[in-house]
């Protein structure tokens, strides 16, 4: 059981939507697998609840398409640990809240969880990031490294 689970999600063939995977590539080299497990997925699915239940803490990384955000803007917030009711609950398109709520309901686990997003500028076909996302990438990585270290120190 790793102590921190990082879930990098998005589509690496859709430009900035792949920023989480790019961050994961760098984070791979920064922590031992016994401490930090990194998963790359296209979207969140119920199965991740089981992975989350085996970790002390979970960090979700995603590209955001938010009109009110500036491209490259990074936001980090704690994931609401309770199930937030909503009209749309497609069983294979889920939110970080869904994953954490399922982990609690099915496995009685309540890992501390954060979602870190980067506002994307382009979600067109392509494997490269937009200039604003490329510029945000090292800042994103440092931000996540900081969160991971905090998690690890809390448990040390």
């Amino acid at each position, binding site marked *: 059981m790793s102590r921190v689970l990082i879930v990098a999600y998005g589509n690496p063939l859709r430009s900035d939507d792949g920023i989480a995977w790019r961050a994961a590539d760098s984070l791979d080299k920064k922590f031992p697998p016994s401490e930090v497990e990194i998963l790359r997925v296209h979207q969140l699915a*119920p199965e991740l609840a*089981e992975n989350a239940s085996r970790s002390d803490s979970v960090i979700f990384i995603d590209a955001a398409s938010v009109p009110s955000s500036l491209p490259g803007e990074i936001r980090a917030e704690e994931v609401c640990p309770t199930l937030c009711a909503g*009209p749309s609950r*497609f069983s294979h398109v889920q939110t970080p809240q869904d994953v954490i709520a*399922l982990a609690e*309901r*099915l496995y009685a686990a309540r890992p501390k969880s954060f979602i870190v997003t980067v506002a994307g500028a382009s979600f067109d076909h392509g494997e490269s990031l937009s200039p604003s996302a490329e510029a945000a990438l090292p800042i994103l990585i440092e931000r996540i490294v900081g969160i991971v270290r905090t998690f690890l120190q809390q448990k040390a």
Partner: protein
Amino acid sequence: MPHPNTIVIDPVTRIEGHSKITLHLNDEGRVEDARFHVTQFRGFEKLCEGRPFYEMPSLMARICGICPVSHLIASAKACDSLLAVRIPPTADKLRRIFGLAQVTQSHALSLFHLSSPDLLLGMDADPAKSNIFGVAEKNPELARDGIKLRQFGQKIIERLGGKRIHPAWIVPGGVSEPLTEANRDAILWSLPDALAIAERTLEWFKSTMERFREEISTFGNFPTLFMGIVKKDNGLTFYHGKLRIVDAAGKVVADDLDPTDYAEYIGEKVEPWSYLKSSYYKPKGFPDGIYRVGPLARLNVADRCGTPRADQELAEFHELQRTAVLSSFHYHHARIIEILYCIERLEQLLNDPDILSKHVRAVARPNALEGVGAAEAPRGTLFHHYKIDDQGLIRWVNLIIATGQNNLAMNRSVLQVAKHFVQGKRLTPGMLNRVEAVIRCYDPCLSCSTHALGRMNLQIQLVDADGTVLDEVARA
């Protein structure tokens, strides 16, 4: 703004893809016709033209995130034909293992994540609770089993192919890497738990059937043909064999059909109201040549499974009706029996003495300009047909996907359910859910069958005799 005499359901939820349903009423306000419209655009066949043939398996896998392995297998088999090679026996077995793992995880997704809310909570349950969270609340063990079974299949795919989605391990001529002893042992170690889940699920499902008598009698319960690939001994298979077609009485109407000659007996009709073509059995014409594929069809055409527990369950399944098993509600039942078969068959293949052989790929240049690959995907028979030029570049592609082959039956099923359950000019959640639930029985993959990417929704319309939209239901 919908016409006041039409009911629209949009989107149909808990399916793979985007579509809508319209229900048309006669002068008495009763359902007279129903249509299942697939609103995604089909594009992959054109997109591939000009690409080198050896890219096809990887390109085709991108059609779907749920069953990329089926497209890999059918595509690689078509490429094997272009190379005119016989792949090494171990590669053949490894491809089968890959396919069985995928069927298991895909069936688990359909049953546990998409349909179990209907089966556990009932067709009239609050739509806000008809999801995996509702299942987790009512029967957490069932929800955990679904998660574990999907992980089981995905983990095998990851062990063999390097990743869970879009692995490129299956290649023209075989597979790219042999199976390691460590991975074989790890998979073998995981089989007992998976088998226990399959057994538990089967027992649970059978215990629920009595509650769904009305649905069983009205969910696509009509005569059609059934088609599937079978082995030489007419046993169940997902990888290779001949095509067999049985009629509603269970009588074999066509046997030993070479999948390569599919165009001689399968026709495709385009309807102006859907991007999904409708396949039919040519000798009977359109629409009399309506046939079904997938788990229900496979168990109707197969004489045996070839594994002990699945064979017991198949015998019991065949007892459900003296004829072929007609109700599409029984797709669920067939799906669980196939999961059982997959797990048992995985054990047989993994214990094969040659399974760790390093000889897993035949290498050749193209030796034919045309190739067809066929296999059984989770949702039914899948055909990939390619033509290349002298440089090995793709010049023409035709794909026939399971969901298209079930299109006529899905439309007729929606009509049967709507006629039985939809009364008056307003839809209740229970009516709506049953119209959706019959579609879920087929586990359609609209992204596969139209080869489009992206959108995942559906809608239902109720239309009167004048074409007026009476009601429309759409979910964001």
